[in-house]
């Protein structure tokens, strides 16, 4: 029997039982759509969280741990590893640093780096340039706003109180120095690492650069970036070195990590979080697909019933077909095609419905969540609740059609077992 004729035979029967077939297709559709939408939440959350991690600027950075700072020899060895761009040691100065400018002052943390190495990295400055000598510094994005005088402090205290009464908080960034701080001089006092008191010695530095705005709104950066020549002028300062290895691309981070570990360095990269995250979400998604498959199995009971009824109703017809020479294989194939087509139709509709639902979820859920949290300003931008990748469509479609064929299997086998003589005796 030609495939075309088999198809037309199947469609003819489906048309004959339109209502029953439609309801079965709907059941298959609901089952498959439930699976797709459920699993799409796993895909959506994974993409959101992974995106957050990958969007961090430090994603191509490898942090080096260890009690001892790197020797010059070790630095060179690491720099020679393929795909390593820069090895930069940041020396975090012990204790805070007091900077005064006009009648204002700010306490901040200080970091000293080798400016030649720093210059090899993509610029982290929003304005100005990197310090070139011991008397120059770059300051954090919020440094000027953190320079407060007594009046500012009073206003901040008052505004903080008001904010607290309203259940919020005030970060003080509306106060502070509002003028141009670049190329201005500030007086700096370091802390005695032993007594934790500010030293009397005052050094004057020129601000030549302002660092980039931090990634997150809640971060306030009022730090000071010194050239490591600082330690020549201030030999008594204590600092804590932290070495970061900068890799050229994201893809090369893991191979470099492996090489460093082979050389017994203790290293860590945020990319490893992604690896762990992928594993977690793989298990999570398998779990969701498993739960979703249960709904498809429930729908398959409908397909089984429909096909069993179809075989029972068409017993005489099957008898006639067999009598005039239809092989059992053809009979079985016709019924399997019918159940597969119900599954296929249900899946196709489910895919369309799922994409629609996914769009609605992503459009409406952020507002609903914000409303539920009673925070209209809740930052839901960048959060994707549901994503339906092609792989999910293929997996869900595969499961749905496979289960549909499986449901039709027993009725189809039953059809092949029908005895011609018994079937021909049946009345119309």
């Amino acid at each position, binding site marked *: *029997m030609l495939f075309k004729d088999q198809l037309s035979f199947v469609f*003819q029967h489906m048309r004959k039982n339109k209502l029953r077939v439609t309801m079965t297709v709907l059941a298959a559709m609901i089952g498959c759509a439930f699976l797709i939408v459920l699993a799409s939440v796993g895909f959506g959350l994974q993409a959101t969280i992974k995106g957050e991690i990958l969007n961090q600027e430090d994603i191509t950075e490898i942090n080096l741990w260890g009690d001892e700072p790197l020797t010059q020899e070790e630095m060179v060895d690491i720099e020679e590893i393929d795909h390593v761009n820069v090895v930069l040691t940041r020396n975090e100065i012990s204790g805070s640093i007091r900077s005064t400018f006009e009648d204002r002052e700010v306490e901040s943390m200080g970091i000293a780096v080798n400016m030649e190495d720093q210059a090899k990295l993509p610029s982290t400055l929003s304005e100005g340039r990197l310090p070139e000598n011991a008397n120059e510094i770059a300051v954090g994005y919020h440094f000027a706003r953190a320079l407060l005088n007594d009046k500012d402090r009073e206003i901040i205290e008052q505004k903080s109180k008001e904010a607290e009464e309203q259940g919020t908080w005030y970060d003080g960034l509306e106060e502070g120095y509002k003028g141009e701080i670049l190329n201005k001089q500030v007086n700096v006092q370091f802390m005695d690492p032993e007594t934790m008191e500010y030293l009397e010695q005052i050094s004057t530095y020129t601000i030549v650069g302002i660092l980039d705005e931090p990634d997150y709104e809640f971060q306030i950066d009022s730090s000071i970036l010194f050239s490591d020549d600082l330690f020549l002028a201030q030999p008594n300062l204590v600092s804590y070195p932290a070495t970061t290895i900068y890799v050229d691309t994201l893809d090369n981070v893991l191979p470099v990590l492996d090489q460093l570990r082979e050389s017994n360095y203790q290293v860590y990269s945020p990319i490893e979080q992604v690896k762990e995250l992928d594993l977690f979400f793989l298990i999570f998604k398998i779990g969701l697909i498993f739960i979703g498959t249960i709904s498809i199995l429930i729908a398959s009971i409908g397909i089984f019933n429909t096909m069993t009824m179809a075989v029972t109703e068409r017993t005489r017809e099957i008898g006639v077909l067999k009598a005039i020479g239809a*092989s059992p294989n053809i009979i079985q194939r016709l019924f399997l095609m019918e159940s597969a087509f119900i599954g296929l139709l249900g899946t196709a509709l489910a895919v369309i419905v799922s994409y629609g639902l996914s769009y609605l979820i992503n459009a409406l859920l952020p507002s609903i969540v914000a409303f539920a949290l009673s925070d209209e300003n809740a930052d839901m931008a960048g959060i994707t609740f549901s994503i339906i990748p092609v792989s999910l469509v293929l997996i869900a479609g595969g499961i749905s059609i496979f289960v549909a064929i499986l449901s039709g299997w027993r009725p189809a086998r039953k059809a092949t077992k029908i005895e011609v003589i018994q079937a021909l005796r049946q009345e119309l």
Partner: protein
Amino acid sequence: MITVQSLSHTFKIGKKGKEKKIEVLKNIDFQIQQGEIITIVGKSGSGKSTLLQTIAGFMKPDSGSIKVNNTEIANFNEKQSAAFRLDNFGFIFQNFQLLPNQNVFENVELPLKLKGVQASIRKHNVKIILEKVGLTDYADHYPNELSGGQQQRVSIARALITNPPIILADEPTGSLDSQTEKEILELIQQLNKIDNITFMIITHDEEVAQIADRKLRMHDGILLGDVKHVI
């Protein structure tokens, strides 16, 4: 053409353990020659329909041999039987056995579809056959829109569409009035004479049996007579 030797079959009826055996075919021997019309007459329960069903491959005999053009078909499995039927046998049933949701054209072309014949060839062949059985104008009608005689003509057309050498007919006029019966029998005789088609007809009607070249009689599973007629 068809050679049946020592064919026996027993039905088991009743519950397991208390089964009753009924011998429906007892050591049957006979031959049918190409181009013959042979009728098998007998009372209800004599085993004549069982004999036809066994030859058709609807059931396997307990023992014996059935050869069609020297091919032993008694031990065919279901798949082999189906393929053999499609190529060698046409069937005419007492209650026509047409598919109610398919029109005359579709009912007649069904065996060709099963054989995998292209639609254009099917259309041509069905047209010729419908002309032959006098139903050219009824191609689009559904079985419930036709008289008994017309339905039986559709059934005959379906049996003939693959040009089988043998037509097996089980009470072909059993559901028809005497006038229609006469017409159908004339059609069978005409097809036999013009196309040299072999007919094996099961009937309890002695008048129908008269069209045969040979009339065999069954009684309690035994084939009794083999009387040659000259029509």
